[in-house]
């Protein structure tokens, strides 16, 4: 009980700490992926890098959102739309990094503003604005549940096909399942549990594991690069 009241009373401090932690994890993953992209010009790495760039920005915005919303600045609505937009874009980039080979034939396109990515920008913006108009997060939850269902399915197939040679693929699949679980729980807690704090805390932990699993994979692969991971 004491722990619960401590958490509730320091909610915004915890949120800021959480947002900064996730942003830092994303920044490390982004930096590693960016280095590999600059050497290889590989489009998959490029979209993977973009995903963590957008996740990092989203959580930085969330940090600002946490600070400003507590002090009731009007600015908080802009931050809320931005947070949703960056988060949705990150999900799209993560999924696209798994399927880009089926859609792209030229590596000379911009990875941020080519025709296909512009569709993602438009969807993300519409979803964020609709959620803001309705005062909910349901559109974002629905879009991300669909994205993570597709990503989980692809990760599962990749894992079954190549698990023996590339062991991190099974962890990648687990990360995707965790991401999917977090989005489904988010949806349920908003719909049925009236944003109950302790379910939100569990979702926060699942999300943190999702990002740390990616960081673990990046560090492990970078370290054991000359062996097969």
């Amino acid at each position, binding site marked *: 009980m004491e722990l619960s009241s401590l958490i509730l009373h320091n909610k915004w401090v915890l949120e800021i700490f959480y947002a900064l932690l996730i942003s830092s994890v994303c920044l490390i993953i982004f930096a590693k*992926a960016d280095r*590999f992209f600059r*050497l*290889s*010009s*590989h*489009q*998959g*790495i490029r*979209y*993977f890098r973009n995903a963590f760039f957008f996740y990092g920005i989203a959580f930085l915005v969330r940090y600002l959102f946490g600070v400003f919303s507590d002090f009731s600045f009007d600015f908080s609505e802009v931050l809320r739309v931005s947070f949703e937009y960056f988060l949705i874009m990150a999900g799209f980039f993560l999924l696209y*990094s*798994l399927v880009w*080979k*089926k859609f792209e*034939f030229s590596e000379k396109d911009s990875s941020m503003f080519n025709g296909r990515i512009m569709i993602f920008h438009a969807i993300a913006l519409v979803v964020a604005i609709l959620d803001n108009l309705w005062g909910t997060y349901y559109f974002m939850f629905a879009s991300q549940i669909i994205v993570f269902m597709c990503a989980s399915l*692809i*990760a599962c197939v*990749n894992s079954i096909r*190549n698990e023996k*040679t*590339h*062991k*991190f*693929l099974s962890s*990648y699949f687990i990360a995707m399942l965790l991401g999917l679980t977090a989005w489904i729980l988010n949806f349920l807690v908003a719909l049925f549990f009236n944003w109950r704090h302790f379910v939100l805390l569990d979702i926060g932990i699942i999300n943190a594991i999702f990002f740390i699993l990616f960081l673990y*994979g*990046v560090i492990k*692969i*970078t370290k*054991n*690069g*000359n062996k*097969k*991971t």
Partner: protein
Amino acid sequence: MATKKRERLDVIRDILNTVRENRQIKPTRLLYASNLSPQMFKEYVSELLSKKFIKLEIDGKEKKFFSLDKKGQSFLQEYKVIESFIENFGL
């Protein structure tokens, strides 16, 4: 399509390995060693030159040679890491 990008990275690795093994190599010899069409070879070489993976040198007799640049060396050193990264993240 699935193997196209892999092949591209492999071609770059092969070209850079050939340049490294020879220290200095004439464009024609590199073309033969790379097993590419002249058009493809031209595209790869201009990409490698623009990225500063290789450099073009001209000796006293006005003969052209390619040699490995620092970025090319780091690509070769990190090639396995990059390959492993792509495969383990299903990219």
